């Protein structure tokens, strides 16, 4: 190619380049990148939650390793939690002697458990000090009621009074004995819990009601000898029932006491552990994938159905899930009628003037008012003002202990109902607007009254919109935490707000909530490191619940819309 030709091509190229820049193509790509980044962020976030949340229940293999440092060797056992690269300089500054050449070193976070014996659950190690890595088949993991997990080797099992089974000789039999004893204690503990929370809880509840009755009579000056005798008699019956239950409980406690095992830690230390403290025992390295899957399902179910243990860092989240759902149901019961009535009023009854338009804008904007403001309002108005008045009027006998003058389930539901009211109003109004005028006029022309038109024609047609509004409200309420922190959630509620004791639904009780559980366990817990996987799991559970509610909203709306489609236009 000669020079001229080359220059020509070059010039066209440059022209194309300038044209490419001027055409705005690069900006379009940048805008597209914004969409990609947002989508990757959302999907990545959900994946992160899913992987970390669901991964927690998988029975991880247990690593056995010797750490050699400055001529000393420590034997360790544990699950590998995390591995990171750290610069050597940082490590040297922290006082480590390193022998490797590289600027970077791999560090491993090992969950060694055995908090009672070793002090800390987690330990950071430098990989270059590792020797003798192994995954011994006979490593045993114990989930316990206290002190977190135990990692070690089973040495012997001793049933109460019975002969000791030596695990070094009869490994299989020892393991089976252990599993049988655990199964027994678990079911006995279940019995104990039922008695403590069911029967004894009911008696305590009755005693408290007696006390309040006595106080009420005293305040009214009606506490005469007859009433006193009556009360004393009732109390005596309850006390008698209580002591018989107490005996039963003692017997149950006695029946699981005394079984114990002897186990060896990685460092050779031997420990005796009572079986009554063990929730579950397994040998992860010896399990096949199917067995692991079974164990996985078991642990996942425990998470969903059980109560939290050890300051919420272990066990399940059932009370929190229950509290969330109950609160949301109560909120829906409150918010739906009011939201629908307000929307019907605004659209069907109020004259469409400036005032109505202003109100509409105001309602719309309330949806944008920060939730904490609702929380503050709920605390000040509902809890202290209304609750305080209710206590004075209806529960004077339990004062100075507040009944409704303290944060509780009812106030939380009411506050969230207020918070989600705009959502329901806006959605319902939108549905009412979409109904053609002709439909209403047709009904009225046939002689139906306004109320009949509303009840028989308009509201059924607006039902998809109402449902959408309600479900959006529910989704918002289920994820809201800030106002609840002020008006009713607690980190640990001893009983569920719904039980078998009169009046069954305890509106004045405080309750647990998934969202608050995440905040509390993740940020206020003494052992954040140990609790973290559980927080991921809880967060994932909450996301699943809310995503399901949202999807339900979308599909419900679509289906109902389909039904009334023929009426539109």
């Amino acid at each position, binding site marked *: 190619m000669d020079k001229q030709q080359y220059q020509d091509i070059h010039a066209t190229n440059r022209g194309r380049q300038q044209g490419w820049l001027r055409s705005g193509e690069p900006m379009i790509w940048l805008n597209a990148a914004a969409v990609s980044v947002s989508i990757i962020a959302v999907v990545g976030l959900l994946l992160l939650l899913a992987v970390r949340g669901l991964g927690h229940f998988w029975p991880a293999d247990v690593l056995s390793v010797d750490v050699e440092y400055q001529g000393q060797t420590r034997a360790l056992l544990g699950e590998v939690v995390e591995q990171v690269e750290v610069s050597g300089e940082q490590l040297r500054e922290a006082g480590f002697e390193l022998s490797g050449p590289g600027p970077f070193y791999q560090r491993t976070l090992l969950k060694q458990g055995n908090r009672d014996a070793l002090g800390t659950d987690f330990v950071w190690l430098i990989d270059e000090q590792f020797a003798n890595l192994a995954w011994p088949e006979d490593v045993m993991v114990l989930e316990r009621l206290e002190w977190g997990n135990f990692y070690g080797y089973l040495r012997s099992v001793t049933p109460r009074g019975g002969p000791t089974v030596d695990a070094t000789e009869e490994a299989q039999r020892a393991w089976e004995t252990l599993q049988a004893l655990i199964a027994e204690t678990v079911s006995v503990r279940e019995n104990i819990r039922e008695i403590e929370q069911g029967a004894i809880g009911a008696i305590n509840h009755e005693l408290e009601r007696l006390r309040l009755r006595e106080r009420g009579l005293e305040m009214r000056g009606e506490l005469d000898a007859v009433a006193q005798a009556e009360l004393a008699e009732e109390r005596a019956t309850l006390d008698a029932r209580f002591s018989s239950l107490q005996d039963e409980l003692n017997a149950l406690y006695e029946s699981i006491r005394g079984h114990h095992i002897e186990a060896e830690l990685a460092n050779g230390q031997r420990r005796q552990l009572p079986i009554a403290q063990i929730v579950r025992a397994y040998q992860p390295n010896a399990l096949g994938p199917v067995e692991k899957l079974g164990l996985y399902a078991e642990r996942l179910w425990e998470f969903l159905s059980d109560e939290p243990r050890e300051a919420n860092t272990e066990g399940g989240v059932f009370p929190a899930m229950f509290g969330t759902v109950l609160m949301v149901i109560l909120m829906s019961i409150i918010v739906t009628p009011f939201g629908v009535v307000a929307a019907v*009023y605004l659209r069907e009854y109020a004259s469409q003037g400036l005032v109505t338009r202003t109100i509409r804008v105001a309602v719309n904007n309330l949806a944008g008012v920060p939730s904490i403001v609702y929380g503050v*309002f709920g605390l000040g108005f509902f809890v202290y003002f209304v609750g305080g008045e209710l206590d004075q009027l209806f529960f004077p006998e339990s004062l100075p202990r507040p009944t409704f003058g303290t944060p509780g389930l009812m106030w939380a539901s009411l506050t969230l109902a207020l918070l989600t009211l705009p959502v329901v109003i806006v959605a319902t109004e939108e549905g009412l607007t979409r109904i053609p005028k002709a439909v209403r006029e047709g009904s009225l022309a046939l002689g139906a009254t306004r109320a009949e038109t509303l009840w028989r024609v308009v509201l059924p047609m607006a039902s998809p919109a109402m449902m959408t509004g309600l479900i959006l409200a529910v989704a918002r309420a289920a994820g809201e935490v800030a106002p609840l922190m002020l008006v009713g959630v607690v980190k640990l509620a001893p009983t569920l707000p719904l039980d078998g004791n009169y009046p069954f639904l305890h509106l004045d009780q405080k309750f647990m909530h998934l969202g608050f559980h995440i905040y509390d366990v993740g940020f206020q817990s003494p052992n954040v490191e140990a609790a973290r996987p559980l927080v991921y799991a809880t967060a994932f559970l909450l996301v699943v619940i809310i995503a399901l509610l949202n999807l339900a909203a*979308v599909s419900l709306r679509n289906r109902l819309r389909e039904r009334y489609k023929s009426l539109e236009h």
Partner: protein
Amino acid sequence: MSSLTEHLSPRTNQWRRIKDRIATVSVTAGGAGVLFAILLIFFYLLYEVVPLFSGASVEAREPVATSLRSAPMYLAVEEQGELALAVSGQGVAHFLRLSDGSTVLREALDPALGSPDLVVAESAESRLFAAAWRNGEIALFRHQYRLPYPGGEQVVTPRLESVERLQLAEEPLVSLTFANTDDALVLVGGTRSGAWVGVRVVREENFLSGEVTTRVESLPLPAMPVQGAAIHLSGDQRWLYHVDATGAFSVLDLQARDASGLAAVVSRGGLFQEPGRLQTSTMLLGGISLLASSDRGELVQAFMVRDPGEGHRLQRIRSFDTDGVPAQQLVPEHRRKGFLSLGSDDTLQIFHTTAHRRVLNETIATGAAPAAIAPRGDLLVQLQADGQLHSWELHNKHPDISWTALWDEVWYESYDEPAHIWQSSASDNDFEPKLSFAPLAFGTLKAAFYTMLIAAPLAICGAIYTAYFMAPALRRKIKPLVELMEALPTVILGFLAGLWLAPLVEDKLTAVVTLLLAMPVGVLLFAFLWSRLPLSVRARVPEGWHAAVLVPVVIFIGYVSFAGNDALELWLFGGDMRRWVTNELGIPFDQRNSLVVGIAMGMAVIPTIFSIAEDAIFSVPRHLSYGSLALGATPWQTLVGVVLPTASPGIFSGLMIGLGRAVGETMIVLMATGNTPIMDANIFEGMRTLSANIAVEIPEAEVDSTHYRVLFLAAFVLFLFTFVVNTAAEIVRQRLRIKYGSL
């Protein structure tokens, strides 16, 4: 036309009409009720906030006669406001019942010595007072009260207890001040012959036997005028303030000695700006601030401040507006940094120092007789020379808040300069609450700013692409996905930000910074290379699927940034960018910082902005862009020249609503920052926002206290801010809708 309902019986029809009436009434009532409930939020917040700004009021009680026949030398009221203690000129302590003036208990301070020369109180809040007799002897007393409940009724039982006795000088004293702690008692007095004498009584407890031994040290004081001068001791027994009759002060450091072995004078100057004579002076609650008034009506507060060097100086902090009335008696409150000033022409003024506010200015018949305020600050008592006991009920709930206290720099006690500080929790009884909204508002705006910095470009660019360029099939999938993000509970975003993102950003700071730069560059590079690909390859990707093509590219850029983090960090920042930022740039770095908050809250705000902006762009009438395209403009030119100007109000409205969300968001900020109320725009430090502050503090705030109401004020500010922002956005949107309608 005959109605189809004619065949119904008249009764049925009547019943239907009644039902209709009932429905109308109940729907109207219900609707109005709901709207009322919404208004209630506004008015309830206002109702809780208003008392903060209303002034005080005073209500006189009927005066009662007592058995005293002269003005008392000392007057105090006990906690319950039932009894007053008056020490008569004869040296007899009378405990008087305020309701009827009767004497509950009478006790001579010292029957042998008789009338004392001086009776002085330690400070406003202490129940300790000292009496000095002609022979130079001094005795300290404490008045104590017990509250037994005989027969269910509360009875206040007084008792006078002698605490200490000592000889300060061999001649009569004309002035005296003292300060007492568990460890030591410091007494300083001026003698009639014009000398200052001082002692420190040091109490040492043997920690084995618990036995207390006392040791008396003499405090050598320099020569200063005694007549007409006032002296005060600071609560920590370090500073001795001497103010002479003209308002000139000298401050002595009782812990330091000058060359001649006397207590060193560390600061001299004048308290008053206008020359005048010292009228009265006292120490404010806590023994840090000195209050002094002149006969020209000047009333000033001063306290010790550290000089930039090593020394200290008495700094005139603020003066109070007295309307030129000289204060004759200053009565500090016992629980708050406020005080009462009784003026020469029977005026009562109530001030608060931190708030720099006068809450009351009223004329009541007072005169010059000694007055005392009850510890709860709700009762003022004065015993006149004729033995009449006057009392006034004070309604002064919230003197400690004012516009300046909330928003301006305030010079707090023990601080070296005025500052914006939020520190609401008390460490002790004489704590000065520092309730400045400025750092909280600053933190709120800072969080919102960094949020918008991340969210606005992503959301708007994304909206532009989705609404204008994206293939419809893809758009139908993308939009619900982004909107699903809006339903993501913020507590989850906050938890991820605090426990996952914050450590990650700290660890891979270089990668995060690289990513921010590399992402646009990388995308542009890819776009350029793409334009160079043969048409046959490009044609395989249909128009409007750029975003899908870019997904692997973006992931790749992200991966490269993070994979290259360590090498880059080693090369540029010696292996640790975080340390480099702190050490080399001198920028403090918190793990939970604004960058983390910005990213996390950005995630919460993007869907809001995206959704509204996308709607606005998408609903720009198509024929506008078709016209532009037909005239030969490229799609981008059409977008910039035609579509965006038309849709800009909608985009603006989306941004406003997003801002409103960012300002009010609580959980993310609560979890992803350290919640320290600082005023620093540094991206690597945290903040405390109004909303997080409410969430942290209101469960502990005492109901109806100033703190509680101030938190309501914070909620009210948030409410108003978001309401105004959202209303503006809504109005803009409605205008836009009308505009589109006319197009």
